[in-house]
């Protein structure tokens, strides 16, 4: 190994063979240069160049034929050789599983998707209660918020007057329940995945940040998606409803039992050879 001075010096040679220095490559290069220079100056230069190049080539050949010419370079005395590589002071600390930087995809333990389902239902229910409450208190009608939501998909509702929106509409109810239910479940799934990604009390932060995010998104796009609703949104109530949804969903997810991803298991357990109990 380089610089390994514990080896006896009899292993290190006293001379090392290296290719002998030679001027013939340079002479050949010069000859070729003269050869082409003659094309733009005087052909006599080219003739000289050809001769020089041939002389250089012959000299070069004699350097390599019959065998490469070597010179023996003396090995420098030990005091001038490379120092042995010092072992670094201190040990390298190994990262532990789950520690920042360790090669698992965090989080190493996740919430089951079923918790997302349950959370979505819970959050959706709470949000529905709040929204219906708004409809009753502000507009005296339970059907008002439901119809507004459905107005995105139902054309008659989209062009309806406020009076008509307060009235019961079977299509509105059906579409509204369907839309609200599906979206609540889907967002519930999203929460199941994302809550562990938020710092500390994930459900709290997820419950505030995510609703604000999609509120902003809705604010920007509602004109195109649901014009009837866009003009009529009572933003404070809207935000309250979304945050309520978020916090309830987040809380339900966070309270669910975590399951381990298999990243932290040894390979044998992961591919199913050993059962979980035997791992301990």
């Amino acid at each position: 190994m380089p610089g390994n001075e514990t080896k006896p010096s009899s292993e290190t040679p006293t001379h090392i063979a290296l290719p002998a220095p030679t001027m013939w490559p340079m002479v050949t290069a010069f000859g070729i240069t003269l050869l082409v220079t003659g094309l733009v100056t005087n052909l006599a230069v080219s003739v000289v160049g050809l001769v020089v190049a041939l002389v250089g080539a012959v000299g070069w050949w004699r350097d390599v034929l019959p065998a490469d010419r070597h010179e023996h370079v003396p090995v420098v005395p030990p005091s001038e050789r490379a120092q042995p590589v010092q072992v670094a002071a201190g040990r390298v600390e190994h990262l532990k599983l789950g520690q920042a930087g360790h090669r698992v995809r965090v989080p190493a333990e996740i919430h089951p998707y079923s918790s997302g389902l349950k959370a979505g239902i819970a959050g959706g229910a709470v949000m529905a209660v709040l929204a219906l409450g708004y409809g009753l208190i502000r507009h005296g009608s339970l059907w008002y918020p439901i119809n507004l939501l459905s107005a995105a998909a139902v054309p008659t509702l989209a062009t309806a007057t406020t009076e008509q929106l307060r009235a019961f509409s079977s299509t509105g109810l059906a579409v509204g329940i369907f839309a609200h239910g599906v979206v609540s479940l889907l967002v519930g799934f999203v929460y199941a995945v994302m809550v562990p990604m938020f710092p500390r009390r994930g459900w709290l932060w997820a419950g505030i940040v995510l609703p604000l995010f999609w509120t902003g998104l809705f604010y920007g796009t509602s004109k195109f998606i649901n014009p009837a609703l866009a003009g009529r949104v009572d933003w404070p109530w809207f935000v309250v409803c979304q945050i309520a949804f978020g916090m309830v969903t987040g809380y339900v997810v966070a309270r669910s039992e975590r399951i381990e991803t298999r990243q932290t298991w040894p390979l044998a357990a992961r591919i199913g050879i050993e059962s979980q109990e035997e791992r301990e």
Partner: protein
Amino acid sequence: MPASSLNPAVPIPQAAAAERPSIPSILHEWVTTTDHKRLGLMYIMAGLLFFVISGCMAALIRVQLAFPNNDFLPPQMFNRMFTMHGTAMVFLVGMPIIAGLMNYLVPLMIGARDMAFPRLNAFGFWIFLFGGGLLYFSYLAAPGLSGAGSAPDVGWFAYSPLTGKAFSRGHSTDYWILSIMISGIGSIASAINVIVTVITMRCRGMTLMKMPMFVWIVLVVAYLIVIVLPPLTAAQIMLLLDRFLGAKFFDTQAGGSAVLWQHFFWIFGHPEVYVLILPGFAVATEIIPVFSRKPIFGYAVMVGASVMIGFISLGVWAHHMFTIGMSAMSNTFFATSTMLVGIPTGIKLFNWLGTMWGGKIRFKTPMLFCVAFLFQFLCAGLTGIMLAVAPFDWQLSDSYFVVAHFHYVLIGGLLFTIFGAIYYWFPKATGKLLSEKLGKWHFWVFLIGFNLTFGPLHIAGILGMPRRIYTYDVGRGWDVWNLLASIGVIFQAVGILFFVGNILWSLWKGKKAGDDPWDAWTLEWSTTSPPPPYNFEVLPEVRSRRPLWDLKHPTDPDWKYE
């Protein structure tokens, strides 16, 4: 083996010399050397010399363009200036400095004593040097269209039919052709040498996937040179035949196609710019891990990305020709392939960031240059992708936007990493550290100057300023940008002065470097600074990508994890 009879009396530098060697014997040593380290240093010194000369030409160009309707340089001289500046920078600065880095570092990094063909190595250097001399000799010897002694003035890419016998009288264009042709032979020789060395001379245990990334990238560069320089040689031979023997290759009167020259030139020219920038990547991939105290993020992906760049870059050449009227199909194909080649490059950029992320970064001068490289190369890459959009290119082709783009690549990308490389490996080559203080002055002054010069030129280009014009009118909105660009040159010049001063001062009074001043991990740091002629007393054996890390941390060696 008989001892050499050629130089019995020439002393080896490291051995205790009986008396100081005389100047002729030193000269003789350097002229006859086949040692890859000496040749590498000669390549770099020659490249830096041409850099200063060509840089002065650029400064003159910027003086002429600082004000509208300036008459500092007459138009014919201006044409020669930008032709010589471009030609010299690509062929006499970029290629040799890269060849120098490759030749110096590859044997050391793979644990070999020399390159595979040391005499061919020497030949390559000398023919490059003589070729460069031939190019500048044209100033003295080529009677051009106007007056005695003129250098080529047809642009660095020498488009037909301007280069035909009828339009470029005299021999100035021939000097361009011949000097580049013979320098090209040197480049091909170097490249073959690198490929053979890397494939056949790695030390025991160093499989291809255990080589330093520098060696991998340089292998891709060498392969590109071998494939891509012959098209240039072929096109130049055709042009020579046209000019000397009346052949009709690019003679439009006889049915020849001037566009064919463009195709052939850019089949060479585009991969050539990857040949120029990939070594910059190689240097960054060595410096960033060491100064972030982390191994390179995603070694296998970096290898894959480099190889992909090598292949895809062969298929993008006509993005230099969007404005000549190719079919919509061609334009689309080349626009797509150009965008595609940005993907592996982007992957590498993310890998460098990933290396720095979570590392303990030491902002020494080599690292400063590499960090600046990351930012500037990003700008360059993005403007490149903008130009890949064919309609965008129809507006901005041959404008200063393109000039700004490629100077961001070549200066902001390549030159900055070359500076980093010099600050990083100068201690290894000379045994002395370069001054950190002067290095930082060099870095900051040059950074300001470079960005001040080429940042505003993007805007001038968008405002319509074409390339290769020797002056411009007032009132086009270009004045302030050109003036700023020219002021930037002053800063760049001062930065270079700091650099040269640093080198000279450190050679004289620099701190002793020792074997391994940066606490690095590749094999070149295991031998003395400077290394003995034979590199290693005993050829090393490696078991991982970071052999010195394994030695420094025997309880936690890399081969446990690779």
